[in-house]
Protein backbone atom coordinates (compact mmCIF):
# COMPACT_ATOMS: atom_id res chain seq x y z
CA UNK A 1 0.00 0.00 0.00
CA UNK A 2 1.15 3.50 -0.79
CA UNK A 3 1.57 6.24 1.79
CA UNK A 4 -0.89 9.11 1.42
CA UNK A 5 1.97 11.62 1.33
CA UNK A 6 3.27 10.16 -1.95
CA UNK A 7 -0.18 10.13 -3.49
CA UNK A 8 -0.58 13.80 -2.61
CA UNK A 9 2.70 14.71 -4.28
CA UNK A 10 1.81 12.60 -7.31
CA UNK A 11 -1.52 14.41 -7.74
CA UNK A 12 0.08 17.86 -7.74
CA UNK A 13 2.86 16.63 -10.04
CA UNK A 14 0.24 15.12 -12.35
CA UNK A 15 -1.67 18.39 -12.67
CA UNK A 16 1.52 20.31 -13.41
CA UNK A 17 2.60 17.64 -15.92
CA UNK A 18 -0.68 18.00 -17.83
CA UNK A 19 -0.17 21.78 -17.75
CA UNK A 20 3.32 21.49 -19.21
CA UNK A 21 2.03 19.11 -21.89
CA UNK A 22 -0.77 21.53 -22.78
CA UNK A 23 1.72 24.41 -23.02
CA UNK A 24 4.12 22.47 -25.21
CA UNK A 25 1.39 21.06 -27.45
CA UNK A 26 -0.32 24.49 -27.49
CA UNK A 27 -3.76 23.28 -26.39
CA UNK A 28 -5.45 26.19 -24.58
CA UNK A 29 -8.62 24.14 -24.15
CA UNK A 30 -6.78 21.60 -22.00
CA UNK A 31 -5.60 24.46 -19.78
CA UNK A 32 -9.19 25.66 -19.46
CA UNK A 33 -10.27 22.14 -18.47
CA UNK A 34 -7.45 22.04 -15.94
CA UNK A 35 -8.54 25.40 -14.54
CA UNK A 36 -12.02 23.96 -14.17
CA UNK A 37 -10.54 21.04 -12.21
CA UNK A 38 -8.66 23.41 -9.91
CA UNK A 39 -11.69 25.63 -9.25
CA UNK A 40 -14.04 22.71 -8.56
CA UNK A 41 -11.36 21.26 -6.28
CA UNK A 42 -11.14 24.56 -4.41
CA UNK A 43 -14.91 24.57 -3.87
CA UNK A 44 -14.75 21.00 -2.63
CA UNK A 45 -11.80 21.73 -0.31
CA UNK A 46 -14.09 24.29 1.28
CA UNK A 47 -16.87 21.76 1.67
CA UNK A 48 -14.37 19.20 2.95
CA UNK A 49 -13.74 21.36 6.04
CA UNK A 50 -17.42 21.14 7.01
CA UNK A 51 -18.03 17.63 5.71
CA UNK A 52 -14.75 15.85 6.23
CA UNK A 53 -13.58 17.28 9.56
CA UNK A 54 -16.86 18.52 11.01
CA UNK A 55 -19.14 15.77 9.69
CA UNK A 56 -21.66 18.35 8.49
CA UNK A 57 -23.36 16.88 5.42
CA UNK A 58 -24.31 20.12 3.71
CA UNK A 59 -26.42 19.62 0.59
CA UNK A 60 -26.62 23.37 0.08
CA UNK A 61 -23.06 24.46 -0.57
CA UNK A 62 -24.09 25.62 -4.03
CA UNK A 63 -25.57 28.60 -2.18
CA UNK A 64 -22.07 29.86 -1.36
CA UNK A 65 -20.70 28.91 -4.76
CA UNK A 66 -23.51 30.89 -6.38
CA UNK A 67 -23.13 33.85 -4.01
CA UNK A 68 -19.45 34.06 -4.93
CA UNK A 69 -20.41 33.87 -8.58
CA UNK A 70 -23.03 36.58 -8.27
CA UNK A 71 -20.66 38.79 -6.24
CA UNK A 72 -18.42 38.74 -9.28
CA UNK A 73 -21.33 39.08 -11.72
CA UNK A 74 -22.95 42.04 -9.99
CA UNK A 75 -19.73 44.00 -9.42
CA UNK A 76 -18.39 43.37 -12.92
CA UNK A 77 -21.69 44.10 -14.64
CA UNK A 78 -21.87 47.49 -12.92
CA UNK A 79 -18.30 48.20 -13.97
CA UNK A 80 -19.06 47.13 -17.52
CA UNK A 81 -22.11 49.41 -17.83
CA UNK A 82 -20.51 52.23 -15.79
CA UNK A 83 -23.51 52.39 -13.45
CA UNK A 84 -23.06 52.66 -9.68
CA UNK A 85 -24.32 49.85 -7.46
CA UNK A 86 -27.21 51.19 -5.37
CA UNK A 87 -27.22 49.66 -1.89
CA UNK A 88 -30.07 51.76 -0.51
CA UNK A 89 -28.10 53.92 1.92
CA UNK A 90 -25.10 54.55 -0.30
CA UNK A 91 -23.83 53.72 -3.76
CA UNK A 92 -20.66 51.92 -4.78
CA UNK A 93 -18.94 51.83 -8.14
CA UNK A 94 -18.63 48.43 -9.82
CA UNK A 95 -15.19 46.93 -10.21
CA UNK A 96 -13.28 44.61 -12.52
CA UNK A 97 -10.44 44.04 -10.07
CA UNK A 98 -10.13 40.41 -8.97
CA UNK A 99 -8.73 40.99 -5.46
CA UNK A 100 -11.66 43.25 -4.55
CA UNK A 101 -14.18 40.83 -6.09
CA UNK A 102 -12.60 37.94 -4.21
CA UNK A 103 -12.79 39.84 -0.96
CA UNK A 104 -16.47 40.67 -1.52
CA UNK A 105 -17.23 37.05 -2.52
CA UNK A 106 -15.53 35.70 0.60
CA UNK A 107 -17.22 38.18 2.94
CA UNK A 108 -20.68 37.74 1.42
CA UNK A 109 -20.57 33.95 1.45
CA UNK A 110 -19.08 33.88 4.96
CA UNK A 111 -21.94 36.07 6.20
CA UNK A 112 -24.50 33.84 4.45
CA UNK A 113 -22.82 30.76 5.93
CA UNK A 114 -22.99 32.32 9.37
CA UNK A 115 -26.75 32.95 9.10
CA UNK A 116 -27.54 29.60 7.47
CA UNK A 117 -25.27 27.85 9.97
CA UNK A 118 -26.92 29.51 12.97
CA UNK A 119 -30.30 28.22 11.82
CA UNK A 120 -29.30 24.83 10.42
CA UNK A 121 -26.94 23.77 13.20
CA UNK A 122 -29.85 23.75 15.63
CA UNK A 123 -30.67 20.45 13.97
CA UNK A 124 -28.67 17.32 13.23
CA UNK A 125 -28.71 14.32 10.93
CA UNK A 126 -31.32 14.19 8.21
CA UNK A 127 -32.82 17.50 9.27
CA UNK A 128 -29.51 19.23 8.69
CA UNK A 129 -29.17 17.73 5.21
CA UNK A 130 -32.66 18.79 4.21
CA UNK A 131 -32.42 22.28 5.69
CA UNK A 132 -29.17 23.11 3.94
CA UNK A 133 -30.78 21.76 0.76
CA UNK A 134 -33.77 24.01 1.28
CA UNK A 135 -31.62 27.09 1.90
CA UNK A 136 -29.76 26.36 -1.31
CA UNK A 137 -33.06 26.20 -3.17
CA UNK A 138 -34.11 29.47 -1.60
CA UNK A 139 -31.15 31.23 -3.21
CA UNK A 140 -31.81 29.37 -6.45
CA UNK A 141 -35.38 30.62 -6.74
CA UNK A 142 -34.39 34.08 -5.60
CA UNK A 143 -31.78 34.35 -8.35
CA UNK A 144 -34.35 33.20 -10.94
CA UNK A 145 -36.86 35.84 -9.93
CA UNK A 146 -34.23 38.61 -9.55
CA UNK A 147 -34.62 40.08 -13.02
CA UNK A 148 -32.33 43.06 -12.38
CA UNK A 149 -29.37 40.71 -12.85
CA UNK A 150 -30.63 38.55 -15.68
CA UNK A 151 -33.06 36.33 -13.80
CA UNK A 152 -33.27 32.91 -15.38
CA UNK A 153 -31.04 33.89 -18.33
CA UNK A 154 -28.04 34.71 -16.18
CA UNK A 155 -25.53 37.47 -16.65
CA UNK A 156 -22.70 37.65 -19.18
CA UNK A 157 -19.46 39.44 -18.38
CA UNK A 158 -17.71 40.22 -21.64
CA UNK A 159 -14.10 40.54 -20.54
CA UNK A 160 -12.40 38.56 -17.78
CA UNK A 161 -11.63 40.61 -14.69
CA UNK A 162 -8.12 41.86 -14.13
CA UNK A 163 -5.42 41.10 -11.60
CA UNK A 164 -2.54 43.52 -10.91
CA UNK A 165 0.54 42.79 -13.04
CA UNK A 166 -1.04 39.79 -14.78
CA UNK A 167 -2.86 39.32 -18.06
CA UNK A 168 -5.75 37.08 -16.99
CA UNK A 169 -6.89 36.65 -20.60
CA UNK A 170 -3.97 34.28 -21.14
CA UNK A 171 -5.28 30.87 -20.00
CA UNK A 172 -2.12 29.81 -18.20
CA UNK A 173 -1.93 33.02 -16.16
CA UNK A 174 -5.51 32.63 -14.97
CA UNK A 175 -4.78 28.97 -14.24
CA UNK A 176 -1.80 30.04 -12.16
CA UNK A 177 -3.94 32.36 -10.04
CA UNK A 178 -6.50 29.63 -9.39
CA UNK A 179 -3.79 27.08 -8.65
CA UNK A 180 -2.08 29.33 -6.11
CA UNK A 181 -5.40 29.91 -4.36
CA UNK A 182 -6.04 26.15 -4.30
CA UNK A 183 -2.62 25.59 -2.74
CA UNK A 184 -3.37 28.19 -0.07
CA UNK A 185 -6.71 26.49 0.65
CA UNK A 186 -5.02 23.09 0.88
CA UNK A 187 -2.42 24.52 3.25
CA UNK A 188 -5.19 26.02 5.35
CA UNK A 189 -7.03 22.68 5.41
CA UNK A 190 -3.86 20.86 6.43
CA UNK A 191 -3.03 23.34 9.21
CA UNK A 192 -6.64 23.48 10.37
CA UNK A 193 -6.98 19.72 10.61
CA UNK A 194 -3.91 19.42 12.86
CA UNK A 195 -4.68 22.54 14.93
CA UNK A 196 -6.38 22.41 18.35
CA UNK A 197 -9.47 23.78 16.63
CA UNK A 198 -9.44 20.97 14.06
CA UNK A 199 -8.93 18.31 16.72
CA UNK A 200 -11.80 19.69 18.78
CA UNK A 201 -13.99 19.85 15.69
CA UNK A 202 -13.09 16.27 14.82
CA UNK A 203 -14.03 15.26 18.35
CA UNK A 204 -17.28 17.24 18.13
CA UNK A 205 -18.19 15.16 15.08
CA UNK A 206 -17.56 11.90 16.91
CA UNK A 207 -18.74 12.54 20.49
CA UNK A 208 -20.24 16.00 21.00
CA UNK A 209 -21.05 15.18 24.63
CA UNK A 210 -17.41 14.70 25.59
CA UNK A 211 -16.40 17.91 23.84
CA UNK A 212 -19.02 19.72 25.84
CA UNK A 213 -17.80 18.08 29.05
CA UNK A 214 -14.29 19.45 28.61
CA UNK A 215 -15.75 22.93 28.32
CA UNK A 216 -15.92 23.50 24.58
CA UNK A 217 -19.04 24.48 22.71
CA UNK A 218 -19.57 21.97 19.85
CA UNK A 219 -22.15 24.21 18.21
CA UNK A 220 -19.67 27.11 18.02
CA UNK A 221 -16.92 24.84 16.64
CA UNK A 222 -19.24 23.61 13.90
CA UNK A 223 -20.44 27.12 13.12
CA UNK A 224 -16.88 28.41 12.67
CA UNK A 225 -16.08 25.43 10.44
CA UNK A 226 -19.23 26.05 8.42
CA UNK A 227 -18.34 29.74 7.93
CA UNK A 228 -14.76 29.01 6.81
CA UNK A 229 -16.09 26.30 4.55
CA UNK A 230 -18.70 28.58 2.99
CA UNK A 231 -16.16 31.36 2.46
CA UNK A 232 -13.75 29.11 0.53
CA UNK A 233 -16.55 27.71 -1.62
CA UNK A 234 -17.70 31.28 -2.28
CA UNK A 235 -14.22 32.24 -3.46
CA UNK A 236 -14.29 29.26 -5.83
CA UNK A 237 -17.65 30.49 -7.12
CA UNK A 238 -16.17 33.88 -8.02
CA UNK A 239 -13.33 32.16 -9.90
CA UNK A 240 -15.76 29.80 -11.66
CA UNK A 241 -17.83 32.76 -12.83
CA UNK A 242 -14.66 34.41 -14.12
CA UNK A 243 -13.63 31.23 -15.93
CA UNK A 244 -16.93 31.08 -17.83
CA UNK A 245 -17.43 34.88 -17.91
CA UNK A 246 -21.02 34.01 -17.09
CA UNK A 247 -23.18 33.63 -13.98
CA UNK A 248 -26.60 32.03 -13.90
CA UNK A 249 -28.95 30.44 -11.37
CA UNK A 250 -27.50 26.99 -12.23
CA UNK A 251 -24.60 27.95 -9.96
CA UNK A 252 -27.13 27.73 -7.12
CA UNK A 253 -28.64 24.44 -8.30
CA UNK A 254 -28.81 21.57 -5.86
CA UNK A 255 -27.24 19.25 -8.45
CA UNK A 256 -24.12 21.33 -7.98
CA UNK A 257 -24.25 20.82 -4.22
CA UNK A 258 -24.57 17.10 -4.90
CA UNK A 259 -21.65 17.16 -7.31
CA UNK A 260 -19.42 18.90 -4.76
CA UNK A 261 -20.13 16.09 -2.31
CA UNK A 262 -19.47 13.55 -5.07
CA UNK A 263 -16.03 15.08 -5.72
CA UNK A 264 -15.11 14.56 -2.08
CA UNK A 265 -16.49 11.03 -1.95
CA UNK A 266 -14.71 9.90 -5.11
CA UNK A 267 -11.41 11.13 -3.73
CA UNK A 268 -11.91 10.30 -0.06
CA UNK A 269 -13.75 12.10 2.76
CA UNK A 270 -11.70 14.27 5.10
CA UNK A 271 -8.46 13.69 3.22
CA UNK A 272 -6.26 16.58 2.19
CA UNK A 273 -6.21 15.74 -1.51
CA UNK A 274 -9.58 13.97 -1.65
CA UNK A 275 -11.34 16.87 -3.38
CA UNK A 276 -8.49 17.36 -5.85
CA UNK A 277 -8.42 13.71 -6.89
CA UNK A 278 -12.22 13.76 -7.10
CA UNK A 279 -12.26 16.89 -9.25
CA UNK A 280 -9.64 15.46 -11.65
CA UNK A 281 -11.61 12.27 -12.05
CA UNK A 282 -14.95 14.06 -12.35
CA UNK A 283 -13.81 16.45 -15.07
CA UNK A 284 -12.00 13.62 -16.88
CA UNK A 285 -15.17 11.49 -16.81
CA UNK A 286 -17.27 14.45 -17.89
CA UNK A 287 -14.91 15.11 -20.78
CA UNK A 288 -14.26 11.56 -22.00
CA UNK A 289 -17.62 9.92 -21.27
CA UNK A 290 -19.39 13.07 -22.47
CA UNK A 291 -17.51 12.70 -25.76
CA UNK A 292 -18.50 9.04 -26.10
CA UNK A 293 -22.18 9.31 -25.20
CA UNK A 294 -24.71 12.03 -24.46
CA UNK A 295 -25.92 9.97 -21.52
CA UNK A 296 -22.72 9.94 -19.51
CA UNK A 297 -24.59 10.76 -16.30
CA UNK A 298 -25.90 7.17 -16.27
CA UNK A 299 -22.34 5.87 -16.05
CA UNK A 300 -21.38 8.49 -13.50
CA UNK A 301 -24.34 7.27 -11.44
CA UNK A 302 -23.22 3.64 -11.73
CA UNK A 303 -19.63 4.50 -10.76
CA UNK A 304 -20.83 6.54 -7.82
CA UNK A 305 -23.07 3.69 -6.61
CA UNK A 306 -20.13 1.28 -6.78
CA UNK A 307 -17.94 3.67 -4.76
CA UNK A 308 -20.59 4.18 -2.09
CA UNK A 309 -21.39 0.48 -1.80
CA UNK A 310 -17.94 -1.03 -2.14
CA UNK A 311 -15.15 1.57 -1.71
CA UNK A 312 -15.89 3.59 1.39
CA UNK A 313 -12.55 5.37 1.61
CA UNK A 314 -12.75 6.73 -1.94
CA UNK A 315 -9.91 6.45 -4.40
CA UNK A 316 -7.21 7.51 -1.93
CA UNK A 317 -8.64 5.03 0.57
CA UNK A 318 -8.38 2.30 -2.06
CA UNK A 319 -4.74 3.14 -2.78
CA UNK A 320 -3.62 3.52 0.83
CA UNK A 321 -5.73 0.62 2.06
CA UNK A 322 -7.21 2.73 4.84
CA UNK A 323 -10.82 3.68 5.31
CA UNK A 324 -11.55 7.36 5.70
CA UNK A 325 -13.30 9.15 8.52
CA UNK A 326 -16.84 8.04 9.22
CA UNK A 327 -19.28 10.84 8.64
Amino acid at each position, binding site marked *: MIAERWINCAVIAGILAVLVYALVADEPFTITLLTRVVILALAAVGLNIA*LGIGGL*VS*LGHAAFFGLGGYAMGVLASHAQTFTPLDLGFFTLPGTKSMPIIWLVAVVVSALAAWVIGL*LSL*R*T*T*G*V*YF*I*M*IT*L*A*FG*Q*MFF*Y*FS*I*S*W*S*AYGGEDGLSIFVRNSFPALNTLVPVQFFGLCFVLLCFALLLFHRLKASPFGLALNAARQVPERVETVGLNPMRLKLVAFVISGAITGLAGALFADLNRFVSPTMFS*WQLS*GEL*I*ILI*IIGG*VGRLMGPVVGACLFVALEHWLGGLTD*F*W*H*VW*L*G*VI*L*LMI*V*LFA*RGGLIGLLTGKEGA*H*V
Partner: protein
Amino acid sequence: MTLLLLIEQVLNGLQFGVMLFLMAAGLTLIFGVMGLINLAHGSLYMVGAFAAAAVAGATGSFLLALVAALAAAALAGALVEIVVIRRLYGKAHLDQVLATFALILIFSEGTRWVFGSFPLFLDIPDYLSGPVTLPGGIEYPLYRLALIIVGLLVAAGLWWLTARTRIGMQIRAGENDREMIAALGVNISALYTLVFALGAALAGLAGALVGAIQSVQVGMGEPVLILAFVVIVIGGIGSIKGAFIGAILVGLTDTLGGIFLPELFKLFMESGAATQTGSALASMAVYILMGLVLIWRPTGLFGARA
Protein backbone atom coordinates in the same frame (compact mmCIF):
# COMPACT_ATOMS: atom_id res chain seq x y z
CA MET B 1 -58.95 41.56 -5.19
CA THR B 2 -62.23 39.79 -4.63
CA LEU B 3 -63.42 37.04 -2.35
CA LEU B 4 -63.96 34.80 -5.40
CA LEU B 5 -60.31 35.10 -6.38
CA LEU B 6 -59.27 34.36 -2.82
CA ILE B 7 -61.39 31.20 -2.67
CA GLU B 8 -60.10 30.06 -6.05
CA GLN B 9 -56.50 30.56 -4.94
CA VAL B 10 -57.12 28.74 -1.68
CA LEU B 11 -58.46 25.80 -3.68
CA ASN B 12 -55.38 25.94 -5.92
CA GLY B 13 -53.18 25.93 -2.85
CA LEU B 14 -55.11 22.99 -1.44
CA GLN B 15 -54.71 21.08 -4.70
CA PHE B 16 -50.95 21.73 -4.71
CA GLY B 17 -50.83 20.76 -1.04
CA VAL B 18 -52.52 17.37 -1.41
CA MET B 19 -50.28 16.47 -4.34
CA LEU B 20 -47.25 17.39 -2.21
CA PHE B 21 -48.73 15.18 0.48
CA LEU B 22 -48.69 12.16 -1.86
CA MET B 23 -44.94 12.70 -2.30
CA ALA B 24 -44.23 13.60 1.31
CA ALA B 25 -46.20 10.65 2.72
CA GLY B 26 -43.95 8.15 0.96
CA LEU B 27 -40.78 10.00 1.98
CA THR B 28 -41.77 10.30 5.59
CA LEU B 29 -42.93 6.66 5.76
CA ILE B 30 -39.66 5.45 4.30
CA PHE B 31 -37.68 7.58 6.71
CA GLY B 32 -39.85 6.67 9.68
CA VAL B 33 -39.71 2.92 9.12
CA MET B 34 -36.31 2.35 7.53
CA GLY B 35 -34.42 5.45 8.65
CA LEU B 36 -33.53 6.10 5.01
CA ILE B 37 -33.29 9.46 3.30
CA ASN B 38 -34.37 8.87 -0.28
CA LEU B 39 -33.42 11.55 -2.81
CA ALA B 40 -34.59 9.29 -5.64
CA HIS B 41 -38.23 9.69 -4.63
CA GLY B 42 -38.61 12.39 -7.29
CA SER B 43 -37.45 9.89 -9.90
CA LEU B 44 -40.30 7.57 -8.97
CA TYR B 45 -42.67 10.51 -9.46
CA MET B 46 -41.17 10.93 -12.92
CA VAL B 47 -41.44 7.20 -13.65
CA GLY B 48 -45.15 7.32 -12.78
CA ALA B 49 -45.74 10.30 -15.06
CA PHE B 50 -43.87 8.76 -17.98
CA ALA B 51 -45.63 5.41 -17.59
CA ALA B 52 -48.99 7.20 -17.55
CA ALA B 53 -48.15 9.29 -20.60
CA ALA B 54 -46.93 6.26 -22.54
CA VAL B 55 -49.97 4.13 -21.69
CA ALA B 56 -52.42 6.97 -22.29
CA GLY B 57 -50.78 7.57 -25.65
CA ALA B 58 -51.13 3.88 -26.59
CA THR B 59 -54.61 3.13 -25.25
CA GLY B 60 -56.27 6.52 -24.84
CA SER B 61 -57.60 5.57 -21.41
CA PHE B 62 -56.81 7.83 -18.47
CA LEU B 63 -57.76 5.22 -15.89
CA LEU B 64 -55.46 2.63 -17.44
CA ALA B 65 -52.76 5.29 -17.44
CA LEU B 66 -53.18 5.83 -13.70
CA VAL B 67 -53.04 2.08 -13.08
CA ALA B 68 -49.87 1.91 -15.17
CA ALA B 69 -48.35 4.78 -13.21
CA LEU B 70 -49.06 3.06 -9.89
CA ALA B 71 -47.76 -0.28 -11.15
CA ALA B 72 -44.65 1.08 -12.85
CA ALA B 73 -43.63 3.23 -9.87
CA ALA B 74 -44.30 0.44 -7.36
CA LEU B 75 -42.34 -2.00 -9.49
CA ALA B 76 -39.44 0.41 -9.95
CA GLY B 77 -39.52 1.11 -6.22
CA ALA B 78 -39.47 -2.57 -5.27
CA LEU B 79 -36.68 -3.29 -7.74
CA VAL B 80 -34.54 -0.39 -6.50
CA GLU B 81 -35.14 -1.42 -2.91
CA ILE B 82 -34.03 -5.00 -3.53
CA VAL B 83 -31.01 -4.14 -5.66
CA VAL B 84 -29.62 -1.01 -3.97
CA ILE B 85 -31.56 0.50 -1.08
CA ARG B 86 -31.47 -2.69 1.00
CA ARG B 87 -27.69 -2.30 1.35
CA LEU B 88 -28.05 1.21 2.74
CA TYR B 89 -30.16 0.62 5.85
CA GLY B 90 -28.16 1.48 8.93
CA LYS B 91 -25.41 3.16 6.90
CA ALA B 92 -24.42 6.79 7.36
CA HIS B 93 -26.78 9.41 5.97
CA LEU B 94 -24.01 10.61 3.70
CA ASP B 95 -23.91 7.21 1.98
CA GLN B 96 -27.67 7.23 1.58
CA VAL B 97 -27.65 10.71 0.09
CA LEU B 98 -24.95 9.76 -2.40
CA ALA B 99 -26.37 6.41 -3.42
CA THR B 100 -29.83 7.85 -3.98
CA PHE B 101 -28.29 10.84 -5.80
CA ALA B 102 -26.60 8.29 -8.07
CA LEU B 103 -30.00 6.67 -8.62
CA ILE B 104 -31.39 10.05 -9.73
CA LEU B 105 -28.62 10.34 -12.32
CA ILE B 106 -29.34 6.83 -13.57
CA PHE B 107 -33.13 7.30 -13.65
CA SER B 108 -33.06 10.74 -15.28
CA GLU B 109 -30.54 9.95 -17.98
CA GLY B 110 -32.06 6.50 -18.51
CA THR B 111 -35.47 8.07 -19.11
CA ARG B 112 -33.92 10.61 -21.47
CA TRP B 113 -32.32 7.70 -23.31
CA VAL B 114 -35.63 5.88 -23.73
CA PHE B 115 -38.07 8.75 -24.27
CA GLY B 116 -35.83 11.51 -25.61
CA SER B 117 -35.52 15.06 -24.34
CA PHE B 118 -38.85 16.38 -25.57
CA PRO B 119 -41.67 16.63 -23.04
CA LEU B 120 -44.63 14.27 -23.41
CA PHE B 121 -48.20 15.35 -22.88
CA LEU B 122 -50.89 13.65 -20.91
CA ASP B 123 -54.42 14.89 -21.62
CA ILE B 124 -57.13 15.42 -19.06
CA PRO B 125 -59.96 12.98 -19.93
CA ASP B 126 -63.21 14.49 -21.29
CA TYR B 127 -65.28 13.53 -18.27
CA LEU B 128 -62.94 15.52 -15.99
CA SER B 129 -62.28 18.54 -18.18
CA GLY B 130 -64.07 21.83 -18.11
CA PRO B 131 -65.15 23.93 -15.17
CA VAL B 132 -67.60 23.06 -12.44
CA THR B 133 -69.76 25.57 -10.56
CA LEU B 134 -69.31 25.37 -6.81
CA PRO B 135 -71.83 26.64 -4.28
CA GLY B 136 -71.52 30.43 -4.21
CA GLY B 137 -71.15 30.68 -7.97
CA ILE B 138 -67.42 29.95 -8.15
CA GLU B 139 -66.26 28.41 -11.40
CA TYR B 140 -63.42 25.95 -10.77
CA PRO B 141 -61.71 23.40 -13.05
CA LEU B 142 -63.25 19.99 -12.42
CA TYR B 143 -59.91 18.20 -12.80
CA ARG B 144 -58.25 20.20 -10.04
CA LEU B 145 -61.23 19.55 -7.79
CA ALA B 146 -60.86 15.84 -8.57
CA LEU B 147 -57.18 16.04 -7.56
CA ILE B 148 -58.13 17.53 -4.19
CA ILE B 149 -60.67 14.74 -3.63
CA VAL B 150 -58.23 11.99 -4.68
CA GLY B 151 -55.57 13.46 -2.39
CA LEU B 152 -57.90 13.60 0.58
CA LEU B 153 -59.10 10.03 -0.11
CA VAL B 154 -55.50 8.78 -0.23
CA ALA B 155 -54.75 10.61 3.02
CA ALA B 156 -57.77 8.95 4.67
CA GLY B 157 -56.76 5.57 3.22
CA LEU B 158 -53.22 5.95 4.56
CA TRP B 159 -54.51 6.85 7.99
CA TRP B 160 -56.75 3.77 7.92
CA LEU B 161 -53.89 1.57 6.71
CA THR B 162 -51.46 2.64 9.42
CA ALA B 163 -53.92 2.98 12.29
CA ARG B 164 -56.39 0.17 11.70
CA THR B 165 -54.82 -2.74 9.83
CA ARG B 166 -52.44 -5.51 10.76
CA ILE B 167 -49.86 -4.41 8.21
CA GLY B 168 -50.08 -0.86 9.55
CA MET B 169 -49.47 -2.16 13.04
CA GLN B 170 -46.34 -3.93 11.79
CA ILE B 171 -45.19 -0.75 10.06
CA ARG B 172 -45.59 1.26 13.25
CA ALA B 173 -43.86 -1.46 15.23
CA GLY B 174 -41.03 -1.44 12.70
CA GLU B 175 -40.56 2.28 13.32
CA ASN B 176 -40.11 1.67 17.03
CA ASP B 177 -38.06 -1.49 17.26
CA ARG B 178 -37.05 -3.45 14.23
CA GLU B 179 -35.19 -6.23 16.07
CA MET B 180 -38.16 -6.94 18.29
CA ILE B 181 -40.70 -7.34 15.53
CA ALA B 182 -38.26 -9.44 13.54
CA ALA B 183 -37.92 -11.65 16.61
CA LEU B 184 -41.69 -11.92 16.78
CA GLY B 185 -41.69 -13.58 13.38
CA VAL B 186 -42.47 -10.70 11.02
CA ASN B 187 -40.53 -10.89 7.77
CA ILE B 188 -38.88 -7.53 8.15
CA SER B 189 -37.17 -7.37 4.77
CA ALA B 190 -40.43 -8.14 2.95
CA LEU B 191 -42.11 -5.46 5.05
CA TYR B 192 -39.42 -2.94 4.07
CA THR B 193 -39.81 -3.75 0.37
CA LEU B 194 -43.56 -3.34 0.74
CA VAL B 195 -43.28 0.04 2.46
CA PHE B 196 -40.84 1.26 -0.15
CA ALA B 197 -43.09 0.10 -3.00
CA LEU B 198 -46.09 1.74 -1.33
CA GLY B 199 -44.25 5.06 -1.05
CA ALA B 200 -43.09 4.72 -4.64
CA ALA B 201 -46.65 4.01 -5.84
CA LEU B 202 -47.91 7.17 -4.11
CA ALA B 203 -45.16 9.21 -5.78
CA GLY B 204 -46.00 7.64 -9.14
CA LEU B 205 -49.68 8.44 -8.69
CA ALA B 206 -48.84 12.06 -7.89
CA GLY B 207 -46.61 12.23 -10.96
CA ALA B 208 -49.34 10.95 -13.26
CA LEU B 209 -52.03 13.21 -11.77
CA VAL B 210 -49.88 16.34 -11.91
CA GLY B 211 -48.48 15.30 -15.30
CA ALA B 212 -51.90 15.97 -16.81
CA ILE B 213 -51.76 19.65 -15.81
CA GLN B 214 -48.07 20.18 -16.53
CA SER B 215 -45.81 18.57 -19.11
CA VAL B 216 -44.17 15.21 -18.51
CA GLN B 217 -40.42 15.67 -18.77
CA VAL B 218 -37.09 14.52 -17.39
CA GLY B 219 -36.22 16.33 -14.18
CA MET B 220 -39.86 17.09 -13.31
CA GLY B 221 -39.48 15.24 -10.01
CA GLU B 222 -36.70 17.21 -8.36
CA PRO B 223 -38.46 20.53 -7.65
CA VAL B 224 -41.36 18.59 -6.16
CA LEU B 225 -38.99 16.39 -4.21
CA ILE B 226 -37.34 19.38 -2.58
CA LEU B 227 -40.68 20.90 -1.63
CA ALA B 228 -41.68 17.50 -0.23
CA PHE B 229 -38.52 17.63 1.90
CA VAL B 230 -39.55 21.04 3.17
CA VAL B 231 -42.97 19.57 3.95
CA ILE B 232 -41.65 16.71 6.02
CA VAL B 233 -39.14 18.91 7.81
CA ILE B 234 -41.98 21.24 8.78
CA GLY B 235 -44.27 18.36 9.74
CA GLY B 236 -41.64 16.37 11.59
CA ILE B 237 -39.86 13.50 9.87
CA GLY B 238 -41.66 10.17 10.23
CA SER B 239 -45.10 11.59 11.01
CA ILE B 240 -47.85 11.11 8.41
CA LYS B 241 -50.09 13.57 10.21
CA GLY B 242 -47.23 16.08 10.15
CA ALA B 243 -46.71 15.44 6.45
CA PHE B 244 -50.38 16.18 5.76
CA ILE B 245 -50.47 19.41 7.73
CA GLY B 246 -47.07 20.47 6.40
CA ALA B 247 -48.14 19.78 2.82
CA ILE B 248 -51.29 21.89 3.10
CA LEU B 249 -49.31 24.69 4.77
CA VAL B 250 -46.64 24.66 2.08
CA GLY B 251 -49.18 24.41 -0.74
CA LEU B 252 -51.15 27.38 0.58
CA THR B 253 -48.07 29.48 1.36
CA ASP B 254 -46.60 28.94 -2.07
CA THR B 255 -49.80 29.62 -4.01
CA LEU B 256 -51.14 32.50 -1.96
CA GLY B 257 -47.69 34.08 -1.56
CA GLY B 258 -47.21 34.18 -5.33
CA ILE B 259 -50.53 36.01 -5.79
CA PHE B 260 -50.81 38.23 -2.78
CA LEU B 261 -47.27 39.29 -1.85
CA PRO B 262 -46.85 41.46 -4.99
CA GLU B 263 -50.27 43.00 -4.26
CA LEU B 264 -49.27 43.61 -0.67
CA PHE B 265 -46.11 45.45 -1.70
CA LYS B 266 -48.09 47.59 -4.14
CA LEU B 267 -49.76 49.20 -1.14
CA PHE B 268 -46.60 51.07 -0.26
CA MET B 269 -44.29 50.76 -3.29
CA GLU B 270 -44.54 51.73 -6.92
CA SER B 271 -45.98 48.98 -9.12
CA GLY B 272 -42.91 47.65 -10.96
CA ALA B 273 -40.70 47.44 -7.90
CA ALA B 274 -43.55 45.91 -5.90
CA THR B 275 -44.03 43.08 -8.40
CA GLN B 276 -40.27 42.51 -8.41
CA THR B 277 -39.85 42.43 -4.63
CA GLY B 278 -43.12 40.59 -4.07
CA SER B 279 -42.41 37.77 -6.49
CA ALA B 280 -38.83 37.42 -5.28
CA LEU B 281 -40.05 37.14 -1.71
CA ALA B 282 -42.88 34.79 -2.73
CA SER B 283 -40.41 32.38 -4.31
CA MET B 284 -38.66 32.17 -0.95
CA ALA B 285 -41.78 32.20 1.23
CA VAL B 286 -41.89 28.43 1.70
CA TYR B 287 -38.29 28.33 2.90
CA ILE B 288 -38.84 31.26 5.23
CA LEU B 289 -41.84 29.39 6.66
CA MET B 290 -39.61 26.38 7.21
CA GLY B 291 -36.98 28.50 8.92
CA LEU B 292 -39.58 29.97 11.28
CA VAL B 293 -41.01 26.56 12.15
CA LEU B 294 -37.54 25.23 12.89
CA ILE B 295 -36.63 28.14 15.13
CA TRP B 296 -39.78 27.39 17.06
CA ARG B 297 -39.49 23.58 16.95
CA PRO B 298 -36.20 22.12 15.71
CA THR B 299 -37.77 18.69 15.03
CA GLY B 300 -40.82 19.95 13.16
CA LEU B 301 -44.42 20.28 14.26
CA PHE B 302 -45.05 16.61 15.01
CA GLY B 303 -41.55 15.14 15.03
CA ALA B 304 -40.40 13.19 18.03
CA ARG B 305 -36.76 12.59 17.19
CA ALA B 306 -34.01 13.95 15.01
